[in-house]
């Protein structure tokens, strides 16, 4: 039995700029089941953040606009709900953490005020109870001196501590879905390990589904059940984590994995995908990866392949894998 929490279907989010219309997200379909951790990976500019901001209805408008598709959260279409309802959902039923927690923490309120606010929204606790709960949450996410930190301001904390505060806030509201956009990219590996551990805990203990955006395939391997690979605004491959990391089918995914320097093993020459990602908005016909693909054929240059089932729970957008 499947219980989808989030169903993004054929999402199209475009930007209307002086340079013309930029199809940043161009027909993206992603489903997240209850309690599932789904990763979105891809290189800079491929549309990962715009996808997640679309779900939260936080795409800056203008210049951005959702021009097509649907986003269903527990069956409710978020594309058409009003801002008032969206405010209820955000930070409550859907929590978010971003790469730079400063953007989502309010600099003029103490940590305790901010976690307490989440708690009060959710439980109607008194101010005093909310504060006690905030301290408890801070301890839970491993913040030392929680009784003192609760009265400090965001700028007084390190990056890793701020990210832990964000997770504490997410835990406080017990969300159905957590959207995490590069939550550990700005952090050192040892701090990253702590944060990933906390997210895993949230997923296991509260059964919170997570949509995790990252460019790090190692993080994907450690965290995700399923992976969505994006390239230039499209999903190009999708499947469970083992399939994608062990037996990918799409030439881009294969190239990406072969480009990675390995911690274990030999130091042989790395594979490298030639060229660069296409400039957003540049007109293309055919497969978007064709200019960089070592398997390209004439058909690829003229016709865009569709995302097709290529195996158990496995989708790929490539003429070769048809």
């Amino acid at each position, binding site marked *: 039995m499947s219980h989808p929490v989030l169903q993004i279907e054929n999402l199209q989010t475009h930007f209307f700029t002086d340079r013309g219309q930029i199809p940043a997200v161009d027909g993206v379909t992603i489903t997240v089941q209850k309690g599932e951790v789904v990763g979105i990976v891809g*290189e*800079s500019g491929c549309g990962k953040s715009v996808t997640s901001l679309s779900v939260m209805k936080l795409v800056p408008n203008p210049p951005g606009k959702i021009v097509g598709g649907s986003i269903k959260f527990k069956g409710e279409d978020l594309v058409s709900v009003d801002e008032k309802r969206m405010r209820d959902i955000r930070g409550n039923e859907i929590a978010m953490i971003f790469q730079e927690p400063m953007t989502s923490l309010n600099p003029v309120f103490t940590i305790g005020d901010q976690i307490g606010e989440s708690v009060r929204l959710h439980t109607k606790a008194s101010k005093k109870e909310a504060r006690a709960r905030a301290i408890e949450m801070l301890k839970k996410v*491993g913040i*030392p001196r929680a009784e003192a930190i609760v009265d400090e301001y965001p700028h007084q904390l*390190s990056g*890793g*501590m701020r990210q832990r505060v964000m997770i504490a806030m997410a835990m406080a509201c017990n969300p159905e879905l957590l959207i995490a956009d590069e939550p550990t990219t700005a952090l*050192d*590996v*040892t*701090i*990253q*390990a*702590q944060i*990933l*551990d906390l997210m895993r805990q949230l997923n296991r203990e509260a059964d919170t589904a997570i949509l995790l955006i990252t*460019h*790090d*395939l*190692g*993080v*994907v*391997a*450690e965290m995700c059940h399923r992976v969505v690979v994006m390239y230039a605004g499209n999903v190009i491959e999708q499947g469970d*984590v*083992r399939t994608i*990391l*062990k037996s990918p089918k799409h030439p881009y995914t294969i*190239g*990406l*994995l072969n*480009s*990675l*320097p*390995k*911690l*274990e093993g030999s*130091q042989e*020459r*790395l*594979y*490298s*995908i*030639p060229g*660069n*990602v296409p400039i957003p908005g540049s007109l293309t016909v055919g497969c978007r990866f064709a200019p960089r693909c070592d398997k390209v054929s004439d058909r690829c240059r003229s016709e865009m392949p569709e995302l097709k089932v290529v195996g158990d729970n496995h989708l790929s957008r490539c003429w070769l894998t048809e």
Partner: protein
Amino acid sequence: MAEDLLIVKNLKKYYPITGGVLGGEVGVVKAVDDVSFTVKSGETLGLVGESGCGKSTTGRSLLRLIEPTSGAINFDGIDVMSLSTDAMRKMRRDMQIVFQDPFASLNPRHNIEKILEEPLIVHGLGSSAERKKRVQEMLEIVGLSSYHASRYPHQFSGGQRQRIGIARALMLKPKLIVADEPVSALDVSIQSQVLNLMQDLQREFGLTYLFIAHDLSVVRHISDRVGVMYLGRIVELTTSSQLYSNPLHPYTKALLSAVPSPDPDAVRERVILQGDVPSPAKPPSGCTFHTRCPHVTEECRTVRPEFMDAGDGHFVACHLYKS
């Protein structure tokens, strides 16, 4: 045996912390605190460690782009610390640096030809025609085309800008390149292009690299030997393969175990460190890692462990490895 091109002894860089009503010196940040290492001619020495551990300060001190507080630097037989400003400028023909953010380090108002030609002009090398020819050659060498010479930095992608940064460093045919996080800002597919380029160039021109990065997989891939830094000190230094197959220092072990592996079958013992890195303005006494170390003893809290050879040139600073 290759000879040592660079010998660094007891390098320190302390930044003063000013404050108080009179704005006087109230303390110091020990950004680099007694670091010693050598780099052999033609090898790549990697420096890894977490943010703020002093990697960049070390790299820049070697070229005296930052004036070291104390220590000895011997480069190609020359005592670098004793050089006058003018002699130091000449010395930098042989020691070049490549930065993480290629955009910030390229003058946006100059086209690529001008950017690449500049080091030659500064050092009074070649006629105008010769310089332009060298620019053309260099563009080809780093995988760009001669028509790129007339373009401006903003017209290039991140990976292309890093190629330009590398080309600029190579213009003077240096012996040593200090590469400070040269691929950290790049996507994986572009990162592998630049790493391959750097390896090709090293082979072709016999370059020596000091390669600074926080990504352990990248450092492992490119380096012959690796030094691990923590709070301004090198805590372990050995060959790349030794470091990964047989790490000795508890910090190195934790660091390695924290790197997520893209192989879903990788089984590893996870050491999750508690707490944050302490401030270098108030480093812990004794072994600076003692506040987070799972093997801490009383001695660690008071006595600073010496950085010494635990056998076969595998250096480590930890009381667990006293002979």
